[in-house]
């Protein structure tokens, strides 16, 4: 029960990113796991002419999120960051929450129809959530970097959430 409360508190922290270090101090990977699995599940059932042309498979989403988070963490540590490995994984995983919400909204909008209006709505939602994710994770991670390398650390985070947003935006149902 206590762990569940901790996870819930972290979700709230991500949605309203004040400069708090609670996320960084008590890291846990339950939240990122739940988010990753739900995102990968929601990205299933995309259309495909052949096996080669469809959207990402479940394992691909998993690998992209975890491998991407590990690479970004290694990158920030190699550039001289002071954050620990699992703390950084924790922050990057939790900040996928806005994009998971965007995926949920996209799926609901696609139930209503898949015309131009639905595309515009999805585009706006995904862009907004992408900005939110990037800003939230930057707010948590930027302080642990040396000051003249902040941009070098923020750019891969931007790329990471951009790729996830692209996967969400290009999801087309059967």
């Amino acid at each position, binding site marked *: 029960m206590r762990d569940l409360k901790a996870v819930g508190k972290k979700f709230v922290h991500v949605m309203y990113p004040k400069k708090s270090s609670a996320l960084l101090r008590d890291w846990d990977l339950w939240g990122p796991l739940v988010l990753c699995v739900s995102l990968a599940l929601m990205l299933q059932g*995309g*259309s*495909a*002419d052949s096996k*080669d*042309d*469809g*959207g*990402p498979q479940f394992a*691909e989403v998993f690998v992209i999120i975890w491998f991407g988070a590990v690479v970004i963490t290694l*990158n920030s*540590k*190699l*550039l*001289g960051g002071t954050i620990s490995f699992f703390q950084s994984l924790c922050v990057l995983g939790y900040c996928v929450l806005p994009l998971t919400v965007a995926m949920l909204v996209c799926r609901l909008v696609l139930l209503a129809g898949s015309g131009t209006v639905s595309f515009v709505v999805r585009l706006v939602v995904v862009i907004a959530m992408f900005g939110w994710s990037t800003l939230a994770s930057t707010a948590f991670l930027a302080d642990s970097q040396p000051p*003249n*390398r*902040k*941009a*070098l650390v923020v*750019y*891969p985070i931007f*790329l990471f959430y*951009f*790729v996830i947003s*692209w*996967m969400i935006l*290009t*999801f*087309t149902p059967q």
Partner: protein
Amino acid sequence: MATADDLKFQEFDDAANLLAANPDATTISIDEPAEIPKNKHGRLQQSGREEDDELLGTDDSDKTELLAGQKKSAPFWTFEYYQTFFDVDTYQVLDRIKGSVFPVPGRNFVRLYIRSNPDLYGPFWICATLVFAIAVSGNLSNFFIHLGKPTYHYVPEFRKVSIAATTIYAYAWLVPLALWGFLMWRNSKVMNIVSYSFLEIVCVYGYSLFIYIPTAILWIIPQKAVRWVLVMFSLCLSGSVLVMTFWPAVRDDNRRIALATIGTIVLLHALLAVGCLAYFFDAPELDFPAPNIPPHNGTTGITKIQ
């Protein structure tokens, strides 16, 4: 108190002397980053006068060798060893990118920008960005080209990301490896060749791929002429960076081998660009349907011109 101060000063002095005698000693170089900008300014002033030496790098090759020995002194199984490859600041990365996009004729990219501080940040993240730029732009361009057709159903084509990643990372790491091996082999036969370390070659190749990122984004425009102009333009820019870097390394060699090496470098670079264009981007006027579609599509203009 006085004794402690004397000891501290002594240690610093001893460290400098020991380092000059034995460049491979394990040291902690705390003030390395501050030194590098000073060296950069110093060398920029030099190179204005002696451009040929700048290209050859004979005047500072000794210094760069010593600096290289100072930097990579941690054993390779420690984390600090790999941190030496990421010892760059934001402005340095931006300068290197600028140097790869605007090649100054007669200036050597390695001597001017890398200066014995090759980094792996630039090559790795430029390749990653390029992979996703090509995949996303290819997908978008195919979407716009086939937009008006009734039988077209959009697919994200996610498999192409892994193909793009394999191709680009293989190019950015295997070609420098082959080139480095080849240059080492020639260096053993012919003296007085400027030699680059493996990481410097990887660095040059990585940064030279940067120009392909805006090119890939501009390839969304579904006009064949525009795409080929872009290919030529970016090939000229990044090819010239590569040629100007490697020409001093091979020009002391047999004339034909030197020209063949430079030719191969440019050819492989061109193959990468053309191959990516051909595989990821559909041709704009491929099986365009009969003209009973309302002319609100941009691609209709192509058939009219042709």
